[in-house]
């Protein structure tokens, strides 16, 4: 991913006047830089010192539960909300205090926000008309954008004559027609039914890859975020919890919030014993010691949580001996076709969830089971960060 040569940048005066020294230092390949952005509403802080970046051509998702500040962050980047503090840069241009019409960013709204009194073609061509492009250019651009989104032939329809999925495509075509530097999307698929959502998600991914459009995507749907993104920014209560690639996020959650929010996870509470490299002992309430992996240094004697994903909890019906073996009883089994989910109550009282493939056989409720937990599948997170959840 290479940055654009300086000459390609549109010539504009910066909102806050020339700030040559500082600007030069922060020149980067990043299409979007969010630097310590804050949004306060009275006494509550909706967005609390959020920083992250989106590289040129990258697809980044803002993921979090409702009310975590992800949409507020996106709307601040678009210029619909004025930040209380921090700096927003788009292609190294400070846009923090620019009005939305001067930012040159595409935006796709959750409810599509198509203008009901304009036809599909008029909706798509509106921004081009404002830019005083020639009629022929506008006509070609409308046709191109509609063909990219699979809506050729719908030019003269009114938005209300279209289905939800088609309206979403028009909204996307409207954003793409202007060839914005960056595309911002606010839960664009959440109003569609499930089957259509999955189809649109795939199309979106293909389209983004083909056009290499820098995209920042807000969603509360972890499946969407993981499958679409190069990187995901997880937000909770106005703060960034972790910024990582989907695989990292799932396999190496930084906090127990991330572990809990992304996928299903099991928590085992315990006390940390001495560390040996990355390996650490966790003493459970029952007195049993499990070997686990810690990414960061853990102080001996502190309270920690050990995480293990359900698909890593393998159940055996025959007795096994050795390190990291837990014993328990199946209290609930659920059949989902391809997978089976078990709830196992350990002899020490905790309940672990297990997910196995159907070809591994079926275990009856009440059956006694042995679980061998591999240290590399057991990840330790200090309790300080875990205290949030």
């Amino acid at each position: 991913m290479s940055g654009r040569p300086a000459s390609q940048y549109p010539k504009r005066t910066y909102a806050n006047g020339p700030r040559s020294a500082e600007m030069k230092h922060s020149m980067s390949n990043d299409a979007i830089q969010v630097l310590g952005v804050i949004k306060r509403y009275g006494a509550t802080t909706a967005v609390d010192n959020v920083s992250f970046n989106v590289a040129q051509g990258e697809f980044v998702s803002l993921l979090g539960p409702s009310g975590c500040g992800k949409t507020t962050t996106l709307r601040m980047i678009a210029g619909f909300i004025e930040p209380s503090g921090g700096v927003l840069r788009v292609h190294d241009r400070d846009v923090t205090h620019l009005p939305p019409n001067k930012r040159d960013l595409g935006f796709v709204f959750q409810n599509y926000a198509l203008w009901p009194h304009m036809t599909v073609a008029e909706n798509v061509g509106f921004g081009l008309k404002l830019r005083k492009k020639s009629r022929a250019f506008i006509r070609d651009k409308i046709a191109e954008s509609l063909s990219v989104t699979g809506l050729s032939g719908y030019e003269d329809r009114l938005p209300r004559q279209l289905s939800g999925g088609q309206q979403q495509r028009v909204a996307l075509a409207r954003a793409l027609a202007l060839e914005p530097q960056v595309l911002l999307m606010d839960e664009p698929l959440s109003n569609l039914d499930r089957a259509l959502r999955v189809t649109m998600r795939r199309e979106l991914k293909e389209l983004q890859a083909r056009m290499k459009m820098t995209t920042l995507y807000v969603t509360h749907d972890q499946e969407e975020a993981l499958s679409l993104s190069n990187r995901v920014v997880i937000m909770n209560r106005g703060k960034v919890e972790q910024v990582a690639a989907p695989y990292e996020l799932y396999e190496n959650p930084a906090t127990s919030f991330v572990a809990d929010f992304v996928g299903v996870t099991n928590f085992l509470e315990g006390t940390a014993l001495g560390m040996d490299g990355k390996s650490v002992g966790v003493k459970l309430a029952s007195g049993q010691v499990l070997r686990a992996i810690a990414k960061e240094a853990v102080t001996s004697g502190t309270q920690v949580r050990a995480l293990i994903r359900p698909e890593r909890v393998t159940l055996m019906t025959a007795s096994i001996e050795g390190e990291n073996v837990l014993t328990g009883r199946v209290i609930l089994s659920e059949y989902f076709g391809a997978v089976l989910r078990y709830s196992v109550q350990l002899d020490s009282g905790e309940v672990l969830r297990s997910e196995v493939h159907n070809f591994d056989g079926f275990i009856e409720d009440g059956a006694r089971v042995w679980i061998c937990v591999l240290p590399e599948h057991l990840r330790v997170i200090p309790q300080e960060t875990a205290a949030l959840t």
Partner: protein
Amino acid sequence: MIRRILPPLAPALIALLIFVAFPMLWVLRTSFNELAGGAYVVDALTLDNYTRFLGDPWYLVNTLWFSIRIAIVTTVISVVCAYPVALYIAKTTGFQRNILIALIMAPLLIGLVTLVYGWIVIFRGGGLLNSLMIALRIYDDPVRYMWDIKGVVILLVYIGTPYVVLSLLDSIERISPFLVEAARNVGASRWTAFWKIVFPMTMPGLYAGLVIVFSLNFSAFAVPLMVGDSNTQMIGLIVYREALLNNDLPFASALSVIMVAVNALILAGMAALFGRLILNRLEAKR
């Protein structure tokens, strides 16, 4: 469908029939009758009442055409006054909003006679309006508002504006703020976003307000009666005079029929115009 809807609506339909349709048909029938001996209505089938009106330039120009002009002028002024007010109220919430709406509605809740007495204080020679205008050096000597066309226009605007504000407010508040944001996002300034997105979408409310105020003001009789003079003989006032002072019910009926017909014609023209301009798009079916 009709069978299912009709029974619950029957009482309303009967009431409509008795109180609206029947009197109107009676007026239509009466307009073809004639007057005998100065006061007695005699059944007849004559067009005399219509020819008397249509053949007299004074009626055509000084009442009918005058009423149309007054209605157009007052409606346009009402809309111009109402639009910024509606935009402002749409931005307010809670207590402030309730107070503003109550203030807007107030003129509609006060009886017209009381209202006119209030305005006399404002209109008279040394009254509020004249003092203000003279203080602002807009003119030097007191101007006559009471018993003059100026007073009629001001009062009709005053009474008409709240209707336009309320119907516009409804339209404005239906507009999702996202639509404006979307326009700003593709490069529209505040003004362009208003002009290209908000304004067209308020057309249904503007249209409803226009229809109400135009109809009210075209057929106004109380305001020209109380505030006007011999130069403000609006058609509603003539109907009142013929029916209640001159006891010429057939002529008054013919005037009423003409009044309703002209009003309907103008409203139909407005409907066609607005429909073609914008309403067809906003109200298009799937």
